[in-house]
């Protein structure tokens, strides 16, 4: 689990003056780099069997803990399996779980937050207190309790993450909808006789998509980080599945055979950075007067 929470983006202020922008390439270099990293990993995940020289589960004890070589680009792990292959295959679990958890949590959270903001009064207050309760809960204890009660596995860990993940979307959604709710077009729509559901889902929510997209993009990285952390602790995947956090855990005592833990961790780093770069770029792009990063 990451030791820092992902805080929602600071809403951009209304500009006093338009700043002339620098060239696209210079402005968005990092975002493009981020997108490039992500495309690489997605391709790697899809094409994994084709681009890897060994099967990911091939136990080969005589060749255990070999250092980097031309046969094993990232060396071998404690069971003789090729680390490079397992790092590539690890992308599959990480990307899939990350997407699934964030998309589902975002959907649930956005809808709940938006409804609460629109309904107002005690409904909104109740939702805010509910999100408080969930966010106040130590996530590690929850994840371990769920694993102990329902068994260790990807699905159960994803459920534990979902429970903890939706509140931040609810809060952001709520604060965005609150801002929109006071705008003129909402009054106009109401005056024209449109029902609240229509106003909320067809008019308000689309206007909030911008910051939501930023949060989602950034959060994809953090979800992958959190899942890797839970796998590091022994929850998450069932062996022998290749997963980055679990691989770092297998190598954490192997100070002299550093490649076992270093490369999977580095993979996590690049993926999360990719999402961060991309998220920053999306934020910059969505806000044409952006002075905020």
């Amino acid at each position, binding site marked *: 689990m990451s030791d*820092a929470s992902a805080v929602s983006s600071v809403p951009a202020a209304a500009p006093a003056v338009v700043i002339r922008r620098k060239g696209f390439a210079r402005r968005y270099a990092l975002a493009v780099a981020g997108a490039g990293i992500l495309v690489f990993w997605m391709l790697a995940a899809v094409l994994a069997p084709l681009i890897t020289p060994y099967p990911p589960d091939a136990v080969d004890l005589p060749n255990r803990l070999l250092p980097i070589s031309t046969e094993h680009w990232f060396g071998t792990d404690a069971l003789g399996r090729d680390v490079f292959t397992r790092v590539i295959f690890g992308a599959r679990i990480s990307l899939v779980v990350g997407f699934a958890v964030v998309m589902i949590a975002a959907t649930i959270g956005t809808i709940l937050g938006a409804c609460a903001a629109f309904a107002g009064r005690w409904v*909104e207050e109740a939702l805010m*207190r509910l999100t408080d309760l969930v966010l106040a*809960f130590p996530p*590690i204890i929850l994840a371990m309790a769920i694993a102990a*009660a329902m068994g260790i596995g990807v699905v159960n860990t994803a459920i534990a993450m979902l429970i903890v993940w939706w509140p931040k979307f609810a809060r952001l959604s709520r604060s965005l909808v609150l801002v929109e709710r006071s705008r003129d077009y909402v009054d106009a729509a109401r005056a024209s006789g449109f029902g609240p559901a229509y106003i909320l889902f067809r008019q308000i929510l689309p206007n909030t998509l911008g910051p939501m997209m930023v949060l989602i993009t950034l959060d994809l990285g953090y979800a992958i980080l959190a899942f890797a952390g839970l796998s590091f602790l022994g929850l998450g995947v069932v062996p022998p599945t290749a997963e980055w956090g679990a691989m770092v855990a297998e190598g954490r005592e192997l100070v002299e055979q*550093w490649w076992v833990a270093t490369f999977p961790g580095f993979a996590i780093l690049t993926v999360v950075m990719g999402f961060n770069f991309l998220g920053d770029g999306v934020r910059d792009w969505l806000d044409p007067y952006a002075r905020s990063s």
Partner: protein
Amino acid sequence: MIQYLAGRLLITIVMALLATLVVFLVANTVPGDPVLAFLGDVAASNPAFVADFRAKWGLDLPLWDRYWIFLTGLFHGDLGQSIASQRAVMDDIVEYAPATVELSTIAFILSLMVGVPLGIAAAVWRDRLVDHVARVVSLIGVSAPTFWLAFIVLAVFYGQLGWAPGPGRIPSFAFPPDRVTGLMLVDTALAGDWELFHEAAAHLVLPAIVLASATLGLITRTTRAAMLDTLGRDYIRMARAKGLSRYVVIVTHAFSNAVIPVITLAGLAYGNLLTGAVMTETVFAWPGLGRYTFRAAVALDVPAIMAITLLVAIVYLVVNLLVDLSYALLDPRATRR
């Protein structure tokens, strides 16, 4: 306002208790039995012995009775007895909390001392090298998995280079100072043991850096964002037009207005540091609450888990309350009509 505060405080307490109730219920649906795990093999297979042990720990009482005992105990400051360590949970927490507080505070100060100037510089020299460097540094800090970063930092700076001392709060050979606060820096200073003070400070460096890395990233980005926000405003241009030097403008006008969202974020970050340093503490053998939490969860030590949940919930909720208050005061759009 007072009513609002009182109301929120009351809700905070209720929420924290609710959190413990949830933990209690979840922990009791788990098939594991902490008693069996604690006893040796012979004793664990002896039903009479096990029943006796459970009775001693009050585990034979019905669910609601046990939770009621926990609640009533809270009013006496009694958080229950830890099954794994065989002593009062309060004693455990008092023993381990200062280590976490010390580490988190140092990490927090570090991230502020580096992050804020970096963020200001990044905003002032926007899109130049400083900005890009700041961006990459903060992104690496935020993106690197803590458990991996801790491993790398320890292996490189202690194992290979020997620049920093190893795991633990003080060297293996040293005698700890008489415990007054539990904070090593304070206690060694009070005891006048300056050599040990330096050792303790040296031992704080690596784990603080690891712990600070993520917070550093957030603080840098937020400071930069807030500064950019204020730098573009009219009153800044006014101040410059009046002939004030750039330095004065940045520090007095721009920063003092930018500092507000930074403070709110910093508050949240500090609360987070206090409650979530499990990975760092484990790798650096730091005897703090994070490691205690993990052990309690592994051992299914329900009283300890509940006490930790209560503590974490209170810290989180109080910090949030303070942040919400300041936010409500400063940003009228976010409050309800």
